[in-house]
């Protein structure tokens, strides 16, 4: 069945086609229909919004911002336009402007959990962690099972070092929204925390198959592939426990080993010392070299 071209459709049918294509993420096709629709009706609010949204998805933030401003000049109260504006302002570095937009949206829609999450995300990115937590608490009061709310709550807990609360929120997210992308990320974080990097890699690879264009997921897969490479196995304690382990090993070699070495033969002492130096060198050089090789 051949697809009807954009110039053959009436406006309403064209709009319906655009919505369908956007839902299926067929952005290239959607952009042709949007361009045709805007030629006929340059002030069409839905088409202006979709045009801006497409530009935002494809990292043309400045173009998206221009289109959103056109949209809001027609209707300053347009909700999707203002929501997109808040996100665009943050991506373009206008954090104070983004905050003002979120606040004005919240004053108009005080019961929207999604808006509290948007504002909370901005606060977290600007290191206002306490305010982010308070905003997430408000979002939780309104919609405790929303995927974005649970994900941001888990993130705030992880930043604050509250591992058990983070686990609780992220597990709830996975249980209630097993098919959402945020759940995938949450599962990866939880698995990594528990030292199950191979399982985390499998989940990340599944996410990548579902969203092959996502550079974020691709970066996660690359990172996990490096971490789970067989040559990284000796570095598992450092990857798992970080600097406390490295410092602990140094303390053992600096203070305990000289005491123990008195009862060992010189070849064994030399062997252990050389092994330790080689391990230190390997721990510094290999993780930086491996990504270039695989």
């Amino acid at each position, binding site marked *: 069945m051949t697809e009807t071209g954009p110039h053959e459709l009436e406006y309403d049918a064209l709009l319906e086609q655009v919505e369908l294509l956007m839902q299926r993420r067929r952005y290239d096709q959607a952009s042709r229909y949007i361009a045709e629709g805007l030629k006929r009706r340059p002030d069409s609010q839905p088409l202006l919004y979709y045009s801006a949204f497409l530009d935002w998805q494809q990292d043309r933030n400045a173009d998206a911002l221009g289109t959103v401003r056109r949209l809001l000049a027609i209707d300053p109260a347009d909700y999707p336009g203002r929501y997109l504006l808040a996100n665009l302002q943050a991506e373009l*570095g206008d*954090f*104070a402007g983004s*905050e*003002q937009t979120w*606040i004005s949206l*919240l*004053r108009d829609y*005080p019961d929207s959990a999604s808006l509290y999450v948007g504002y909370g995300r901005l*606060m*977290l*990115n*600007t*290191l*206002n*962690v306490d*305010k982010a937590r*308070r*905003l997430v*608490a*408000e979002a939780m*009061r309104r919609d405790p099972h929303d995927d974005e709310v649970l994900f941001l709550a888990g*993130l705030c807990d*992880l*930043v*604050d*070092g509250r591992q058990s609360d983070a686990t609780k929120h992220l597990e709830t997210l996975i249980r209630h929204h097993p098919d959402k992308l945020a759940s995938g990320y949450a599962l990866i974080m939880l698995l990594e925390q528990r030292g199950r990097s191979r399982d985390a890699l499998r989940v990340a690879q599944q996410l990548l198959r579902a969203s092959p264009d996502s550079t974020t997921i691709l970066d996660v897969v690359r990172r996990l592939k490096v971490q789970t490479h067989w040559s990284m196995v000796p570095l598992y304690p450092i990857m798992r426990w*970080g*600097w*406390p382990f*490295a*410092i602990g090993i*140094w*303390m053992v070699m*600096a*203070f305990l080993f*000289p005491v123990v070495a008195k009862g060992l033969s010189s070849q064994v002492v030399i062997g252990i010392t050389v092994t330790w130096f080689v391990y230190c060198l390997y721990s510094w050089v290999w993780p930086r070299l491996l990504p270039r090789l695989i």
Partner: protein
Amino acid sequence: MTQNNIDDLLTPTLSPGAGQAPAIYSLTASMLTAFFGGPFAVIALTAVNSWRLDQVRRDIPVLALLATATIGMLFLLVRADQVPLMPFVELPDDRALLIKAWALAVFGVSALLHQRFQRNMSFSATPRPNPWPAGIGCVLIGIVMTRFVIDVVTP
């Protein structure tokens, strides 16, 4: 939550022109600074991080305490034979190692001071600033300060 609290929550926090929170030097940079420059070096780098985060006023008491404790530790290590209690404690001959161990302990406290920000940066994959200029500068400061305390303050 009361309406007053909601109003407080909806009061702008960011000043016009506010950018993304400044990134601070990584734990790796701090640890290496401590290892090669000693305790004063890592205190200096932590102070730089506090300045970048605009948290100097909050962190000064902790940094001052760490600096004072470091001077006390160096005094004990240098004058160990003359301090009355020390004969009961057998110190290793290589006191430089002990100074390094103390520097790593100071690093641990400094890491706790900014752990929230470090975690936030790693979750948001915020790029870190180039650590070399500040790191080398702090290492030099650390070496000079340690020598100063050993040779001048505790002669």
